[in-house]
């Protein structure tokens, strides 16, 4: 797998405050990468280092195999969490200015802008002042500016905060299209549910440290709890007896003879052996694996880590 970005042992401090502690992340090319973690975990600090807005205290970043350098700025598109536009400028002047700052020639910028303005059906906004636009309209302009120079790497910090649902959907579709065309996208968000279904890979960071990273499917497999949700008709007592030593009943809910239960498989049990065992007393309506959400995984990782920490401090 090719990596567009290879972040190695980054440390960053602000005074006595640790923003990033020995963080290493590799971001595969042409994938959607989720940078997840609560507010204040260090996501924005990391993104600012990638954008060369600030530099790391130690550690290195490689962009497409080369050491990160000023020339890479033009290959990155960045939509910051704190985003805005010059209120007094017209849309046209503004987008031309920002496009040229990203290294586009005037005529190329104009051509590309025409394409995007047509695509978003906003051609008649060109001479309007930004302050005349609604927030949703401004967001469209901001998105265009971010992707206009066809960056190899697109970094979106909390992209869906403040976007209305229609714009959010529009942006999601555009992002998937950009991925098709070969861009790599980094999503950074504290709202883990919002990007789960889009991401191929993720990294979880908390309190300046990376907790885990990898492909979403691998992580899910690793943190699967082996629990299943079964809806059936029949005798709940008989069903429970049939589980015997192969599985443990965690939750149950009954409406008449319709039962919804959550069971956890024990030892070598498989979904098939479980089903075989209970078929006599239950008419199965549905059978689903309970997939852990990124939120659950995050919480369990943070908890495990803290228990590990207390243990180690105990032995000392």
């Amino acid at each position, binding site marked *: 797998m090719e990596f567009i970005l290879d972040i190695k042992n980054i440390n960053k401090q602000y*005074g006595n405050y640790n923003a990033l502690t020995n963080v290493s992340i590799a971001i595969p090319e042409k994938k959607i990468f989720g940078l997840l973690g609560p507010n204040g975990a260090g996501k924005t600090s990391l993104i600012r280092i990638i954008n060369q807005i600030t530099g790391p205290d130690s550690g290195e970043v490689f962009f497409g195999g080369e050491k990160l350098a000023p020339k890479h700025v033009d290959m990155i598109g*960045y939509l*910051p969490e704190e985003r*805005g*536009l010059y209120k007094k400028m017209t849309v046209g002047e503004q987008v031309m*200015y*920002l496009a040229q*700052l990203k290294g586009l020639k005037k005529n190329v910028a104009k051509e590309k802008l025409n394409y995007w303005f047509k695509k978003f059906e906003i051609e008649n906004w060109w001479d309007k002042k930004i302050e005349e636009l609604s927030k949703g309209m401004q967001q469209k302009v901001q998105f265009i500016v971010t992707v206009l120079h066809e960056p190899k790497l697109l970094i979106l910090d909390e992209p869906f905060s403040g976007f209305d649902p229609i714009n959010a959907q529009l942006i999601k579709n555009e992002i998937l299209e950009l991925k098709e065309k070969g861009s790599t996208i980094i999503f950074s968000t504290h709202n883990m549910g919002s990007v789960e279904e889009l991401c191929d890979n993720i990294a979880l960071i908390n309190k300046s440290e990376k907790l885990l990273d990898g492909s979403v499917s691998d992580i899910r497999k690793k943190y699967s709890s082996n629990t299943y949700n079964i809806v059936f008709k029949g005798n709940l007592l008989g069903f429970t007896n049939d589980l015997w030593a192969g599985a443990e009943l965690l939750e149950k809910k009954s409406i008449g003879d319709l039962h919804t239960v959550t069971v956890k498989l024990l030892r070598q049990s498989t979904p098939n052996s479980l089903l075989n065992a209970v078929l006599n007393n239950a008419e199965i309506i549905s059978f689903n694996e309970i997939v852990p959400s990124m939120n659950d995984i995050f919480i369990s990782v943070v908890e495990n880590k803290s228990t590990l920490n207390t243990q180690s401090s105990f032995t000392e």
Partner: protein
Amino acid sequence: MHKLFLIIQREYFSRVKKKSFLLMTVLGPLLMAGVMIVPIWLSMKDKTDHQILVLDRSGIFIDQIPNTEKLKFTYSTQNLDSAKAHLKSGPFDLILELHYDLINNAKPTPYLFYKEQPGITTEQYISNSLENILFDYHLQGDSIDRNKIDNARRPVELLLNKVDEKGVDKKTNTEFNMALGLGFAVAIYMMIFLYGAQVMRGVIEEKTSRIVEVIVSSVKPFQLMLGKIIGIALVGFTQFILWILLTALVYITVTTVIFKDQMKDVQKQNSQIEIIKKNDIMAHADKMKIVDTPQDTIKWINYVNSLDKPLIIGCFLFYFLFGYLLYAALFAAVGSAVDSEADTQQFMMPITIPMILGFAVSQGIMTNPSSGIAQFFSIFPLTSPIVMMMRLPFEVPTWELATSMITLVLGFLFFTWLAGKIYRTGILMYGKKTSWKELGKWLFYKG
């Protein structure tokens, strides 16, 4: 480099194209011309006609105060109360009451009663005339010939001549030099604050509109800061040139076309007052042959000629440019540290104080332009743009000027570097009240 140019371009055109720029450019000369024209207009306004009733108890003033075009004096011995009663209805709008003891009083205090307060020139005319009459009266009493006194009084005017290395004389004048130096200093002070504040507002605007992080992902924060400072300097330059042109235009138009006749009147009036004020001394001057006093105009031309004009204009541009650059960087740092203009107060203090200090010591500097204080403040980079300009017309040793200039350039580099460190951290800090301590910490954050 190309990106810096783009930033300068935006900063320049976004300001020059604004309506407020046009408005200020047009209003500026009107205001400045106003400053020059209003005094003329006011002095014209003061020339309202007055009918003055003089109640003279002593008798020595009767028919002694010369009437002028606007001021007519009538003499009477009626009592004050009945005269006052007529003030409201009668032909007189001023009553001058002269007591019996006026003649022998060491400090005479006659009364002037009015319905509407007369202007200062009218007051001055009356008191000067009375003084004049009393002077003559007392001289006559002691049988002293006034002509002898006038002859004996010789006004002295010191003509300063600077002898340069080549042994050539140059005529100078201290008052003229003071006015010139102060004028330059005030101009630099105003320009620095006017355009420095624009830099600060620009930074705050970028921060509050949240555009700044988008931009610094394309260019270095330092480039953005520098681009803004240079762009606004060019705006200032444009406005400066337009102001000079427009002011000249307005002033010339107004004085030659509209006030043509009035200007002559004012000059005539002023010279009349002058004559009376000086106790007729100058009237006898030609008879007494006080020679060799050059005519005023020639005098001024001499002073201007005595100045090293290319040096002074060159220095003005130099101190203006680098003074602005240095302070603009500080203004940018202040702008980056706050979330709104209202929060700038606490950080503005240390920027304002050196400038004010420059003016505070100006009196001392002008009385002794080569003192240690003058030397220090004209070399210290935060005050040198102001203080050196005050000293310059008095001529400054070359080594001092060179040191001051080099120090200013070094100061500019140092403060811009310092401001850049605060700026690049400050612009990305939102919603936090910044303290001085915090600001100090930012200086030590690694890039």
